[in-house]
């Protein structure tokens, strides 16, 4: 069968049969004023050969830059089998099949993903992914409002150290539903949430406190103290974590006495390449007692009539096809493809491999910070433990420095002055396991050359 079933002759025959001169005549009910005859700015189609050439040239224009930017999206080595397997026909789909139980393999992958994520976060239950970390945080806020048995306020305390993009998305999604998101300041010396600032909220009706780990500056928050404070003040705890960091630091399920109530994050560090800002893959976990308030699909393991292991979508009464307008969310398809990539990536690394990658990231970042702060005019913004990012203070505005570095083929980091103007000339840098000592040296040499050229303002 031809891929395009209607030849010109087919179309002509059909039009003749119904007595119409041309296809446009089928649309003559649409007033001319509403028609779009031309699409300005959209060029004519190209043959495949020309298109390949154009795409190759555009890709070359991007160059192979040396990357030291993180800020929510991280360059990691992705083992070749990950995408070799993900692109197999059997699993190459973003969708949960409509007749889900007919696709046992898909359901098993979802189940394995959930198992790995719960193991990593120390939480009881996981769903089978959300769109990205930012929307997962928004869903966690909505879930906390539903799950909290006593709070009437729908107030969420959101540290300023949470990724600014995540904060904006969380506000955009939740404020129309009546949630009140209140920002918490950070300690300017340590770049972590100011525990003192929480005290003015003590005794008020709070729904949840968000705890980022590590936070946007790469700093490790005192998650135990924050969790204890929140639980002591009747608020639920929402962890917003980098899952890779959990190979090294205490997972949300172990924070404080009872652990976080909900934990979310972005699975991008697991098998998802950097690609113009997306797509990413969010994950969401919670304590078992809140599972009926959790959005998203959940695959469960069971046995069939003959006692053989099988997988099934479970707890579907939360979902829109059953609960309609009162569903826990309208998410049912999620990021199946990237969830599959993350599952394979994690399976290849295993717990030991994951810890080695996380340790290498932390080590490379220490090396990077040491190399850059040895340059006159560069110092660390914050003291205290961190994971694989660090905020640095320069003696001059960051943007022109980043431009000059880009001209030298180096992506030097994320300019913090837009989101945190109070920090001054602050730059967020990141080194993952993909950066070598030679890479770090190259960056340091370039920066030294730039900053030495003119004296500080």
């Amino acid at each position: 069968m031809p891929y395009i079933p209607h030849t010109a002759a087919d179309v002509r025959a059909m039009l003749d049969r119904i007595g119409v001169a041309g296809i446009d005549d089928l649309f003559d009910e649409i007033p001319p004023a509403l028609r779009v005859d031309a699409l300005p700015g959209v060029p004519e189609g190209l043959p495949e050969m020309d298109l390949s050439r154009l795409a190759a040239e555009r890709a070359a224009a991007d160059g192979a830059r040396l990357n030291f930017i993180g800020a929510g999206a991280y360059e990691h080595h992705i083992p070749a089998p990950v995408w070799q397997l993900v692109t197999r026909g059997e699993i190459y789909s973003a969708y949960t099949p409509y007749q889900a139980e007919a696709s046992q393999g898909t359901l098993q992958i979802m189940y394995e993903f959930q198992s790995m994520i719960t193991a990593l976060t120390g939480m009881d239950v996981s769903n089978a992914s959300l769109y990205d970390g930012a929307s997962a945080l928004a869903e966690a806020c909505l879930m906390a409002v539903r799950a909290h048995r006593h709070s009437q306020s729908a107030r969420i305390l959101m540290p300023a150290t949470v990724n600014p993009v995540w904060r904006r998305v969380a506000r955009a999604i939740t404020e129309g539903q009546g949630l009140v998101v209140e920002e918490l300041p950070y300690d300017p010396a340590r770049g972590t949430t100011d525990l003192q600032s929480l005290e003015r909220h003590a005794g008020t009706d709070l729904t949840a406190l968000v705890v980022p780990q590590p936070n946007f500056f790469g700093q490790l928050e005192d998650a135990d103290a924050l969790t204890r404070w929140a639980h002591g003040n009747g608020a639920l705890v929402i962890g917003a974590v980098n899952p890779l960091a959990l190979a090294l630091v205490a997972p949300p399920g172990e924070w404080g006495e009872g652990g976080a109530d909900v934990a979310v994050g972005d699975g991008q560090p697991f098998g998802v390449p950097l690609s113009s800002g997306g797509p990413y893959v969010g994950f969401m976990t919670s304590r078992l007692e809140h599972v009926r308030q959790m959005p998203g699909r959940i695959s469960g393991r069971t046995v069939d009539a003959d006692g053989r292991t099988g997988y099934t979508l479970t707890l579907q009464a939360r979902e829109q096809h059953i609960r309609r307008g009162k569903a826990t969310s309208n998410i049912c398809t999620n990021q199946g493809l990237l969830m599959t990539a993350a599952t394979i990536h994690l399976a290849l690394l295993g717990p030991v491999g994951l810890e080695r990658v996380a340790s290498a990231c932390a080590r490379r970042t220490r090396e990077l910070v040491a190399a850059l702060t040895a340059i006159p005019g560069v110092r660390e913004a914050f003291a205290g433990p961190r994971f694989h990012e660090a905020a640095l203070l320069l003696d001059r505005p960051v943007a022109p420095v980043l431009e000059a570095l880009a001209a030298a083929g180096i992506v030097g980091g994320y300019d913090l002055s837009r989101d945190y103007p109070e920090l001054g000339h602050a730059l967020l840098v990141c080194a993952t396991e993909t950066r070598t000592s030679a890479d770090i040296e190259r960056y340091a040499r370039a920066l030294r050359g730039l900053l030495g050229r003119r004296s500080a303002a």
Partner: protein
Amino acid sequence: MSEIPADLRYTKSHEWVRTLRDGSVEIGITDHAQHSLGDLVFVEVPQAGKQLAAGDACAVVESVKAASDVYSPVAGAVIAGNEELATQPELINQDPYGKGWILRLKPAAAGAAAGLLDAAAYAAEVAAAG
């Protein structure tokens, strides 16, 4: 034929109401409702203190087949939800008019339950719905 006790009041949406001696009311779902839903696996009951208007969704019953809202037949303030149901939702299947009660309410107006269906009228509703 499902059980429809003569001393209770009913709604078309299959809730029952029992007026207690102190004027408060006890609310649950009928034997017919629990039978239609099948085995219950989860019940969400309201918190004490919650103010409800007549017809407000006040609880959720989830069975292996479906999840349904329970609507408050009368206006009032919640005195208590049946916390036993959190771990034993099957109480509604086993004893819908007794241990399977869902919430107790202090009605906003005395005698509000009087306007609801009596057992005969409810039995006619169930029969008519086939």
